[in-house]
């Protein structure tokens, strides 16, 4: 036991000595910062960082601003990684964002949130991505002039790496123009999280849809109750086999709720196709041939959504 006590005391003294020697505290940083790193990492993919917002020397808040830690601001102290290694010894990994690094996702995200906390961090913690241990670097690429996840044309592919069910839906015949590279996920969703269900950019589903489809907002004199509540009660916004991204074909979609005596409750079958006795309740726009104001009507005689 005495031996153990001496060992512990010795360890304590050694720690104190390390903590005060050399005038530089904490984990070892490289001797010359980025210049040390670039003496080995001179490939184009690494150097592309200098084409990004992260590498603006006159940005006092940026990693390459005056007095900042340059590469090591994100990758962590590189002294050990850049130091000499004995022959046959494996070079220690840089602490963060290295394939052989041992940092956890939370620790690596902490590196990003250290600067981006007030803009991103609070919503991030409230969202679902941290539960799934999504790393910032899973979506964002820092060493590239144009981060694909920030470009409309390339962003969906990044999201679909994990959200495969949504990718499947967007490939359906009737979908928003994701496949054409003309719409991105962040038009509707807030991937950094917030308290809105499914991380939407606006407070509700309808508020989000009506950013672009404000013509459906009303408020109408004659409202259609589900329309004012939630667009997704009838539409599948990621895509559908049916025109208009409807969840189901009319008239059956409408007949899921409307059962009034007469034409709303009649089953329209294949004998009412063009090859039989064609029915205006079934063909063309089906119910919408007459009830065309399905999102609501502002006509004094429009209670049946026909005017």
């Amino acid at each position, binding site marked *: 036991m005495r031996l153990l006590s001496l060992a512990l005391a010795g360890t304590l003294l050694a720690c104190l000595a390390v903590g005060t020697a050399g005038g530089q505290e904490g984990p070892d940083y490289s001797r010359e910062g980025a210049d040390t790193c670039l003496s080995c990492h001179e490939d184009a993919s690494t150097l592309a960082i200098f084409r990004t*917002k992260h590498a603006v020397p006159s940005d006092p808040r940026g990693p390459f601003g005056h007095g*900042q830690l340059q590469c090591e601001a994100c990758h962590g102290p590189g002294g050990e990684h850049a130091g000499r290694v004995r022959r046959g010894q494996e070079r220690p990994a840089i602490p963060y964002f290295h394939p052989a690094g041992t940092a956890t996702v939370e620790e690596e995200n902490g590196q990003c949130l250290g600067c981006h906390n007030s803009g991103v961090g609070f919503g991030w913690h409230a969202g679902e991505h941290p539960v799934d241990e999504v790393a910032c670097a899973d979506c964002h690429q820092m060493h590239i002039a144009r981060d694909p996840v920030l470009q409309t044309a390339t962003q969906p592919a990044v999201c679909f790496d994990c959200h495969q069910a949504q990718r499947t839906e967007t490939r359906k015949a009737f979908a928003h123009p994701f496949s054409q590279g003309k719409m991105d996920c962040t038009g509707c969703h807030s991937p950094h999280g917030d308290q809105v269900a499914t991380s939407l950019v606006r*407070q509700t589903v309808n508020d989000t849809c009506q950013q672009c489809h404000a013509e459906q907002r009303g*408020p109408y004199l004659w409202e259609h109750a589900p329309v004012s509540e939630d667009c997704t009660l009838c539409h599948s916004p990621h895509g559908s086999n049916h025109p208009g991204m409807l969840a189901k074909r009319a008239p059956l979609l409408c007949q899921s709720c409307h059962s009034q005596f007469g034409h709303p409750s009649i089953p329209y079958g294949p004998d009412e196709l063009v090859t039989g006795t064609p029915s205006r309740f079934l063909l063309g726009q089906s119910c919408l041939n007459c009830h065309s104001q399905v999102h609501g009507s502002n006509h004094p005689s429009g209670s049946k959504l026909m005017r």
Partner: protein
Amino acid sequence: MNNTQSKLLLALGAIALAPAIGAQEVDTSDWACEYCPFQQGHEGDYEVGASSVSDDSAYFGNATGYDEEGAYGNLDGEGSYASGAYRMVWTVEDLGLDSRVAELEGSHAGKFDYNIGFRQLPYRQFITTSSIFAEAADALFLPNGWVRAPTTDGFTQLGSSLVSRNIESDRNIYTIGGRYLAGSRFSFSLDYRRQENDGTKIQGGSTFTNASLLPMPFEYVTDEVDFAVRYGADNAFVALSWYLSDFQNDNTALFWEQPFTGAPGADTLAQAQAPESRFQQVTLAGGYSLPELRTVMNLSASMGQITQDTELLPYTINPNLATDPLPRSSLDAEVDTTNFAASITSRIFRKGRIKFSYRYDKRDNKTTQDTWNRVIVDTFPDAGEELNVPYSFERSYLSLSGDYDLFDMLRVSAGYDRRDVDRDFQEVASQSEDTGWGRLRIRPGSGFDIDLRGGASKRDVDNYDEAFAIATGQNPLMRKYHLAYRYREFGEATVSWSPAATPISVSLTGLFADDEYTRSELGLTDADEVSVALDLGWSVTESTSVYLNTAYDTLESTQLGSESFAEPDWRADNEDEFTTIGAGFNIREIGERFDLQLDYMRSEGTSKINLDSAADAPAQFPDLETTLDYLRVRLGFRQSERIEWNLYALYQTFETEDWALEGVTPDALPLLLSLGATPYDEEQVIVGIGFRYQMGAKSGE
């Protein structure tokens, strides 16, 4: 030395180390960054191209602009400029097409940034449509000499009057915005977006017995403004924002001349169109973190108002019908919205995390109720009176969940959610849904990740008011699916493998949801969804990668109806199936100068509808089918460090089988004048060449 002494020494050691780890004062005086190739001046990468399109196509022209056969010139590119703290980046895309984009972002590091942009988004729905109507602003006119008839087979002038009329529109989106950083804590941002959307859409126009599908011109403008003030400190954040969405419509009514023989005086009919409206919302949001407790709290509160005061049309424009004056000349609608959200996320336990969140949404429609005397489709007055129904609702959503790392390789999670909805003027006044779920995440090593989750929910209602249903003409047995009792089971499993030593990734995901509406005698009674997806990615070499992804998705549902307005006497089964496969490869630096990229995708959708009626034998509709094939090849040739040539070839086909359109020529139905839209049967070949030039310094120079 006893155990207590040992602990004391260890504690002292920890104290001694603490300041050394916590301090981040690094002497960077020698960090000159003299080898850092910071950008100075202009750099850009631009491609001038020409392409040839083999065929007209609405489907493939949608969003792309390649809707017409012929030659297209194009310019794409991106560039940047940097000087000291100033930086600008810009993008131009598809400048020669109707899908053009031009965007510019600029910043002065640490002081301000701004953006300005333009996007055009073409929407092409049908190029097979034709119409008899001539268009002028908000009115559609019959051709000279048109002879009205009670049915389409009496339209003697139809054949000579039909003129091709595409159903299409263009959305132009203008954006401008900026952010000013006032010191390290405050920022102000202002963003403006204008969307101009105009074109032609299909609109049904009906009378009592017949209907016409009209090529309705429309011209919408939506202006949006987002203004926000933010304050951010190390452990706190507050933002106050204001959002405005102002919708303007040049045509708040549509007038059209009735092609059918109609009621006396009903030769011209009118519909209201989307009313102009304004939505404003103020939001106060904030967050506070307690690092010592590893806890973050968020709050958000919004208040908004939607107003609409577009002038109303009269009950009818039929001069033969006398009507009462309108109770109001405009609706003067007002809807107040309230949204509140709060969450607390804590990792107070080293191996665990708990999260509590609450959300409340309210739509309070304060529009005054009045008595209205409807004229039925401009033909005859309704004897009764109607009250307009301003729907309101309140929703609250409470969620509690937790995760715990049982072992390094196993994390367990569980949660409980409750959702309450209160509505007025509907069959169900109060509805609640309880959901419980669990999740296992297993990481056995070697790059494997297994994620299993599942749960169940029960949505219940206090009372489905059959008296209310009867009063609105509904069969009292009907249970609307969003109001009905529902029991749902759901699950999802993902297995992925990304070994560290091998550049391969494999992911297999399956999910299901099984909804049972066991208390619904009419309406939707069950709905099931199953989806499976497989992804493979392999970086064969540093310059060669291949991928394959495939997915299968099916949605099945059953609904019951009653033609006799009593017990169920018919049943419809819907089954939507969808299969997709995508595959391709990318080989760079073939012979150091060539790149070759190939992408292929096939998607097939099939919808089956079976109808089983007491009155008729069971019958199956012809399958609704959609089939898309897409093959794209790009060959790149690097002539020099700055010059690259690209050859493209794209082959794509899209076919649909759709009984709602098949054979529905303008006069196929006696009582419906249609636009004759046909199912899609489109094939398009696009070949193109691009000359790419890189300007300015390259990374590393």
